[in-house]
Every structure is written in structure tokens, then in C-alpha cells.
């Protein structure tokens, strides 16, 4: 199967500090792929490289035949590679509805705006109740729903999710992972970055384990759940 997204020997530094070392990663169409690891392992940095918010030191980034290193952030979004960033990053002075509209800023997606808003509201009924509320005044869980819904507004071909469960109540965490699974079932390919190793391995088809900027382990989600190193280092078993 040909890959939708392919990272080869991706290296990145913040100043003198090397954060990523020759990271190889592939996402095939229809998959949920997860990148797990502890804080500071380089997970978010990997996503920031894909979205071109930062420029890699070396290596290639290819999406569906396009060399991403030649593109600007907004052009990457235009290809359908959409990131739901860590910490939600909701536009605080915009209403829920305005935030959703921004999600379909790319011209090609504006025609589907009404339909996508309806889909967002059916996936997250809470957002429909709060559509006139300012984004900055919502709770963390509601903001996370809005961030994911906003990402879906852009007709993603690949959805990059950065720590969607961070800071949510335990009850809501399970909820978010069910929603991610549902979004994938509706045909969206997902690259999920998480510190919640158990939940993300549970829903992922394949997984990469990142430690201090290097891929140390890769395999099927279910299979990694049984791995001794994973159990000891991340699952506390």
C-alpha cells in the first residue's frame, strides 16, 4: 500500500538543541497512526514540522506526492493536511460558529461549509447549544471539541491531532478517543500524538514510540500494548 504521508530521516533542532534524530514515519490512507512518548520526546515538534510551522534541518516530508518542504503552512492546509494543535488554540474573541467558519477558510472548502457545520453539530451537540458563545469563555473539554470540529471543517485528508486528551477529565478522555475512532470510521486518516499511551494504542492501527527524538519502536497498536518495554515504561505494569 502506498503511503499518504511519509517522513524520511527528519531531523530538527531548536537552536543548538537537537530535538528530532532521523525520524522515519509513514501513514497509509484510512489508518489511525499514533506517535506516543513522554513529555519532550519530540512528538509535537514532529507535527509542527509536518504543518511547516517550523523548518526541518534535514530529511524529507512527502504528502501524496507533494514535497512539503517546498510549501508554506497555509499551502499544506490547502492540500488537506490539517492540524488540531496542542492546547486547542481556539480564537478566544470569536464565537463558536466563527471559529468553525475559520476552519473552512480555504476556498475549496467553503462550498461545504453548511454541510460541515451540520456534521460538527451532530458530532458535538454541545457546540450547537453554545454556537454564539465566545471561544475563550468555554471549558477545556468544550474547547477541545471545538478544536477537533474546526479541524474537520477543512475537509481533512489527513488529520493531525496533538495531545487531544491533555487536561481533560478522565470521563471525557475516553469520550475523545471514541470520537477520534468515529471520525476515522467516517473516512478520515489520522495521525495522533499522545501522552495517553494506553488509550491511543488501543484505537491505533499502527504506532511509533518516540524517545528523546528517536523512533525506538514501531508496530501495530495492539501488539505494542503487549510489549514489555511499553508496559514498564508507559503503562506502569
Amino acid at each position, binding site marked *: 500500500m502506498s503511503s499518504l504521508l511519509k517522513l524520511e530521516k527528519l531531523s530538527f533542532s531548536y537552536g543548538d538543541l537537537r530535538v528530532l534524530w532521523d525520524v522515519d514515519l509513514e501513514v497509509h490512507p484510512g489508518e489511525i497512526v499514533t506517535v506516543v512518548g513522554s513529555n519532550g520526546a519530540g512528538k509535537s515538534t514532529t507535527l509542527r514540522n509536518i504543518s511547516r510551522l517550523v523548518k526541518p534541518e534535514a530529511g524529507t516530508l512527502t504528502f501524496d506526492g507533494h514535497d512539503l518542504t517546498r510549501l508554506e503552512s*497555509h499551502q499544506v*492546509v490547502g492540500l488537506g493536511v490539517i492540524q488540531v494543535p496542542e492546547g486547542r488554540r*481556539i*480564537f478566544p474573541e470569536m464565537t463558536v460558529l*466563527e471559529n468553525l467558519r475559520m476552519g473552512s477558510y480555504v476556498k475549496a472548502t467553503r462550498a461545504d461549509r453548511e454541510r460541515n457545520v451540520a456534521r460538527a453539530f451532530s458530532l458535538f451537540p454541545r457546540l450547537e447549544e453554545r454556537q454564539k458563545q465566545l471561544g475563550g469563555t468555554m471549558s477545556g473539554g468544550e474547547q477541545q471539541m471545538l478544536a477537533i470540529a474546526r479541524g474537520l471543517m477543512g475537509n481533512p485528508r489527513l488529520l493531525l491531532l496533538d495531545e487531544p486528551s491533555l487536561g481533560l477529565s478522565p470521563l471525557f478522555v475516553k469520550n475523545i478517543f471514541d470520537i477520534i475512532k468515529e471520525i476515522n470510521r467516517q473516512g478520515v486518516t489520522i495521525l495522533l500524538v499522545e501522552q495517553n499511551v494506553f488509550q491511543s494504542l488501543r484505537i491505533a492501527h499502527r504506532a511509533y514510540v518516540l524517545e528523546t527524538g528517536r523512533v525506538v519502536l514501531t508496530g501495530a497498536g495492539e501488539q505494542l500494548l503487549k510489549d514489555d518495554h511499553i508496559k514498564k515504561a508507559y503503562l506502569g505494569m
Partner: protein
Amino acid sequence: MIIFVQSLLSGILVGGVYALIGIGLTIIFGVMRVINFAHGDLLMLGMYLTYFFFASMGIDPFLSIVLTAPVMFVLGAFLQKVFINRVLNALPQNQILLTIGLGLVMSNTVMLLFTSDYRILTTSYSSSALHVAGISISTPLLLSFAITVAITAFLYWFLLKTDTGQAIRATAQDRDAAQLMGIDVKRMSVLATGMGTALAATAGALISPTYYIFPQVGSSFTLKAFVVVVLGGMGSIVGATLGGVVVGATESLAAVYISSGLKELVVFVLFLLVLLFRPAGLLGKSRM
């Protein structure tokens, strides 16, 4: 009582133009986090352009806005692309030096071209006034206020209802998140600087029938724009609108009840008081 209403009213009318100056500054600051210390000089360029159109072609100063604003939009876009874009990630003091420098180049270029003589633009209605219920309202002030209201209303509509306007606000609220929506933030910066510049120049055109026109006129307006914006809350457009009207009304009332020589002092005292008790400005928001 009549005197109070009279001075309050003319203060509000002048305040409308201050609001326009402040809104321009706040849009530029909001999108790029750069304080444009050349803002008054851009206004000065607007005045001279208006004067030029009037003196050489006889075009009415209010009418010539349709020429002045687009020309200055292009100049602003150019300044952003060539100069300001390079210091977006630089230290604030370097950004300040750049914009102050740009302002100096502008005022000295104008001095070279037009000399430092004071110029007056006199229209047929420059000194005419409307009399209603014992209150007289200067015609050019009233006209300029009407144009200000129309432009401000259009601007609010643009920023709140159109995709491009919302993209500008999104960029001001969270630059990274805006990029993740597919917004070309560099283009938004160019657009914002162009708009801010056009607004400053429009304000210049609007006051040209009532103010002296000279190359250094900008500096006092830079200061005023800064007060207006900080008073209302940096980056808030509603705040800048409110700030403009408050400054205009305060100046006018101070001139009547204290002394016209001290009106600026009163404004600055008010400014310091607001900063003391509401450091984030009257509306206390830092985003558009």
C-alpha cells in the same frame, strides 16, 4: 449648559477622526505586534496628498479620499513587505527604531519637496457652520465625522462578516493557529498594514480643511494615536473607537473649561489615570 453641549459635541466630532487614526494603529499592532511610530507621518502624507490634489487639480479634500486612500494602502503594503516584515521577530526596540526611522524619512522627504512652510487648505465650506437650537456645528467637522462613521461601519462589517476580515482577526488572536486554518498570515500582515496606512491617510484628508499642514505635523498625531489606542486597550478596535471619542471630548471640554493651552495636559493626565487604574485600557482586551 449650551457651552457644555457645544464643546462636548465638537469634541466628539473631532474624536471620530482620532478614532480612525487609532483604529489604523491598532489593526497594525493587532496583526503584527509592531507599534507603528510612523503612524502620524503616514497621516501627514495623507494631508499633503490631499493638499496636492486640491491645489493642483482642484479636487475637494473629502472627495479625494477615494484617490488618497488606495495610494496610501499601496504605500503601506510596500512598507510592510520591504521593511516591517523583516523585524517581525526582532526585539521591540529594534521595531520601534525602524518605524521611527521610516517616519523621519517621510517627514524630511516632504520637507524637501514642499519646504517646511505651513500650508492651509481653504474650501468654500471651511469656515461655515450649521446652527441648530443655539448650537453651532462646523460644516467640515460634521462632514468628516459622517465620513468617519461610514468608514468605521464598513470596517466593522468587513472585519466581522467577511472571510478575509475574520482571517485578519484570527491572525491577530493567534498567529500559529491562523496558519493552521490555511490563512496566509504574511498576506494578512500586508493587508493590515495597507489598511492601517489608508486609515491614517484618510484621517489626514479629513482634518486637512481644519488643521495646518506642515511636515512635522505627524509627531503630535503619533502620540495622540498611541494614547487613543492604549486608552481603549491595545489591539481592540472597539477600544480604539471609544478611546478616540474620549480623547476628543476631553480635549474639547478642557479647552473650554480650563485653558486651550492645557488641553493636551488634561488628556495625558486622564491617560495616566486610566493606565493606573485599568492598565489594560478601558475595554481591557488585547485582541481584535
